[in-house]
């Protein structure tokens, strides 16, 4: 009831924005209304999660085509994702109240924002393929329109184009997937799909198209190309939702098909997903490491985190197929935990990026710096987010990576030799991605918030104070990062209730040692307790402070930086983002991105500066998408000639088509 009311409210808000658009009060009102409606959906999801396993009965509404009805249903899986989506949605709406004041193109954002939220929630609630795809398109198109909000820049138009193509491709794949599951009879409800038995080839194609369709929306390599273009182009609160939440809705679609509708997925698909996830994780973070645009960096880091979550899902499939439901549950809990975590800290980081951009008007790392002194709230919240995304204990990002690693360490026990040898490789990729993510966010945070300002706009950031609504949402999300890391067992218990129908086993991650100790598998296998780490760490921190002040001096003296006597007041002498990632560019970039450095030294006596330039290529564009787009252009060129045929030619074509069709019919009629 609450959910239905909230969903209708979202649609009405969108209409209100269209009718009464233009005035600032409308924008704030619509965002406030979105916050209230999302809060309703959030409460609906949470109460359903609290009631235990088992879904609500399917609700049939006479929507859509006349002979089709729309089915809606809420079960634990959709309730969990509803909590993920709407938590971020509440935050983004409240953030938007303050943020939309600084947006020049706000009129082109407000009407679509409620529709976007509506689309995401409707995907989660849909209980038939028709409704699912319609809602999916709502989500895609509403976000596409917001990507194009600032359509005057050619870069954004290009982003919108790539996004539209990739979204169409994704929906096409999902349509094929559902079509194959529905079969010739057109049993389009999820209930009918669950009972359908699939032959080998369609079963294979269903999984393939589901992985392609959901993977293109989630941003798995090599289908990630639209993410770093489209996510930064939208206004920051929309970027936060697209990156933090819409990718999760795509993963929901993948989980729904692979674990619920399809049911029996063979372990090879688990292995394939793990490899895709591992490659996405490592490549995503490597891309992020070399970005200069703050929001693009965050979008690439989303590719990494989606990869991490997909490793968990793939491992879950492999364990489930090998008859190890407990380990499958562990891997899935890890994957879902990471999905929850990423939605929180990525939203937080995009909000921080939005606050930085609205205070300075600068998105490039090379134009920022020293913002922690000028924007203390944003800087502190972003520090928590950066720590969480770098998987540092006791924050939430670490818990999910720990759970996935624990499941991976049991991987060599799988019966297949490919998995015995492959799992350690994926484990190494995950570990590498985690370590590189820490480097990436030390770089991003250190260059943006620490050091001395690299531009006048950054130096004057304190002249544009961040509105209270933006500050508070960031503070709340930062607290959630800490909380979800400090009480991991409470979260895993809720997640194991979600995972239970997928693996058919009730699995408690903390069964052995009790409440604050995460002890999957058994108490001797390895355990972790964020709660204890927080408590003991706080005590040790206090002891360290008391010891240092008791034994030593108190207070500090402010002075100029020492800098080994080389002190200069030019901020250009600082390390930049480019120079920070230079050692890693030499290690990884030369082989993967073909990074080449050229140094132009002026002749002795000349007074021009020396230049160091770096050339890098994007392997996915150069080796995959450019050939495809060239092939399409080539075919289109050839097909174009058919516009200029003579009448005889057209008649001949029609006649030969007719003959061909008759032949097909004759062939089909053969007994």
């Amino acid at each position, binding site marked *: 009831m609450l959910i239905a009311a909230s969903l209708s409210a979202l649609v009405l808000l969108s209409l209100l924005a269209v009718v009464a658009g233009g005035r600032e009060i409308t924008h704030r009102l619509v965002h406030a209304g979105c916050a209230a409606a999302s809060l309703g959906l959030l409460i609906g999801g949470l109460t359903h999660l609290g009631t235990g396993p088992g879904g609500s009965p399917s609700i049939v509404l006479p929507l859509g085509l006349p002979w089709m009805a729309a089915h809606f249903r809420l079960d634990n899986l959709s309730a969990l994702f509803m909590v993920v989506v709407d938590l971020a949605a509440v935050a983004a709406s409240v953030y938007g109240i303050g943020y939309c004041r600084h947006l020049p193109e706000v009129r082109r954002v407000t009407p679509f924002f409620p529709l976007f939220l509506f689309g995401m929630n409707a995907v989660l609630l849909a209980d038939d393929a028709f409704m699912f795809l319609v809602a999916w398109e709502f989500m895609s198109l509403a976000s596409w329109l917001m990507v194009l909000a600032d359509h005057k820049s050619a870069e954004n138009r290009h982003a919108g184009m790539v996004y539209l193509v990739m979204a169409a491709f994704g929906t096409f794949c999902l349509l094929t997937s559902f079509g194959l599951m529905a079969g010739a009879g057109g049993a389009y409800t999820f209930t009918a799909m669950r009972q359908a038995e699939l032959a080998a080839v369609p079963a294979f194609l269903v999984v393939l198209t589901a992985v392609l369709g959901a993977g293109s929306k989630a941003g798995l390599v090599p289908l990630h190309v639209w993410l770093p273009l489209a996510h930064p182009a939208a206004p920051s609160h929309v970027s936060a939702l697209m990156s933090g939440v819409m990718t999760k809705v795509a993963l929901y679609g993948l989980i729904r098909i692979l674990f619920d509708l399809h049911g029996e997925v063979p372990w090879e698909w688990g292995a394939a997903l793990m490899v895709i996830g591992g490659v996405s994780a490592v490549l995503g973070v490597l891309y992020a490491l070399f970005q200069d645009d703050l929001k693009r960096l965050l979008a690439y880091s989303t590719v990494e985190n989606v990869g991490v979550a997909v490793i968990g899902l793939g491992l879950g499939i492999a364990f489930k197929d090998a008859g190890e439901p407990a380990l499958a549950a562990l891997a899935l809990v890890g994957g879902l935990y990471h999905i929850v975590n990423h939605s929180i800290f990525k939203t937080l980081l995009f909000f921080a990026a939005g606050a930085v951009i609205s205070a300075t008007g600068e998105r490039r790392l090379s134009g920022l710096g020293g913002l922690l002194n000028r924007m203390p709230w944003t800087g502190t919240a972003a*520090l928590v987010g950066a720590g969480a995304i770098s998987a540092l*204990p006791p924050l939430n990002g670490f818990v999910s990576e720990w759970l996935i690693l624990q499941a991976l360490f049991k991987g060599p026990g799988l019966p297949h030799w490919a998995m015995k040898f492959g799992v350690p490789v994926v484990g190494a990729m995950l570990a590498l991605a985690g370590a590189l993510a820490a480097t990436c966010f030390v770089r991003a945070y250190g260059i943006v918030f620490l050091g001395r300002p690299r531009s006048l706009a950054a130096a004057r950031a304190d002249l544009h104070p961040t509105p209270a609504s933006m500050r508070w949402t960031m503070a709340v999300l930062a607290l959630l990062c800490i909380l979800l890391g400090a009480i991991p067992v409470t979260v895993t218990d809720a997640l194991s209730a979600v995972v239970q129908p997928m693996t058919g086993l009730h699995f408690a991650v903390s069964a052995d040692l009790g409440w604050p100790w995460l002890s999957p598998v058994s108490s*001797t296998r390895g355990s972790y307790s964020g709660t204890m780490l927080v408590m003991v760490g706080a005590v040790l921190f206090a002891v360290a402070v008391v010891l240092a002040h008791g034994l030593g001096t108190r207070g500090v003296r402010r002075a100029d930086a020492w800098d080994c006597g080389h002190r200069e007041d030019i901020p250009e002498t600082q390390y930049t983002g480019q120079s920070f990632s230079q*050692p890693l560019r030499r290690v990884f970039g030369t082989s993967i991105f073909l990074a080449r450095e050229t140094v132009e030294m002026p002749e002795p006596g000349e007074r021009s500066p020396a230049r160091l330039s770096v050339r890098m290529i994007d392997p996915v564009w150069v080796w995959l998408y450019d050939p495809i787009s060239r092939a399409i252009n080539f075919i289109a060129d050839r097909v174009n000639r058919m516009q200029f045929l003579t009448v005889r030619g057209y008649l001949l074509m029609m006649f030969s088509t007719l003959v061909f069709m008759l032949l097909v019919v004759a062939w089909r009629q053969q007994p």
Partner: protein
Amino acid sequence: MTEFLIQLAQIFLVVALAPLVTGWVRLVKARLQGRVGASALQPYRDLYRLLQQEAVVAHSASWLFRVAPYVTFSAVWLAAVLIPTFTTDLILAPAADLIALVALLGVARFWTALAGLDVGTAFGGLGASREMMIASLAEPAMLMVTFSLSLVSGSTAPSQIIAFVLSGSVGIEVSMGLALAALVIVAVAENGRIPIDNPSTHLELTMVHEAMVLEYSGRHLALMEAAGMVRLTLFLALIGGLFAPWGIAQAGAGWGEWRWGWEHSLPKALPWPRPWRCSRPGSPRCGCSAMPISWAARCCWGCWRRSSSTCRRRCDGSRADLL
């Protein structure tokens, strides 16, 4: 109650003894280089001196710069509290396994690197960039060590791995040997030792870890230095504990076993220059008696250099012949 006291003892002993361990390592290094070296107690004096000095903070520094030493120190301390040194029977041991231990050291590194970037000097960024590059290769290596140990012993918790090694059911394991080799390399990298980094270098351009803490002074620097000492102790205890745990006290042990464990916990991982230790420390003869060893080391190095360069020359010669 006893368990609580043991844990408390561990908490304070790791910090109290870490400077001694560092001092000892420096002393041995000095002797191997043919120097007399400072007393093993010198790090205590250094730390005390630093604590008494004024803490100077740059104008451009933020609050992060002042908090980072405390966070770094307490994160490393927390990690050191959780690993078995003289007993495996620690009440806090289940709070973190090896994966969490790696991550706790990662917390310390994260904050130190950020502190290096905070003042906005060239050297700070240089150190942070290099440190994170090394760490992003060393950390996966450490996790892979954990992976192979967990494959052999079925656990990622250090106390369980030690119990497994002590149970005698482990034979000659190739993976344990490789894990030991990898862990030693990781320890060298994490502690900023030669050949990855040189803790006693004075040339800023060659610094890694030191470059990040160049701006620190007074008690802040003392904490950063102490964190490094505790980290060194932690790695020595970890390597000793995982790969040569004999003598460590297990659950239900008495006082005698704990003492035995203490007496053997660190020494077994420390370098012992006993064969060439001189009768009168500080006398010129001491240097002489250490000379043969250092000469031997130099000879080995020289021979290797000579042979490799000869080989190269020979290769070049043969190529010249071909041409």
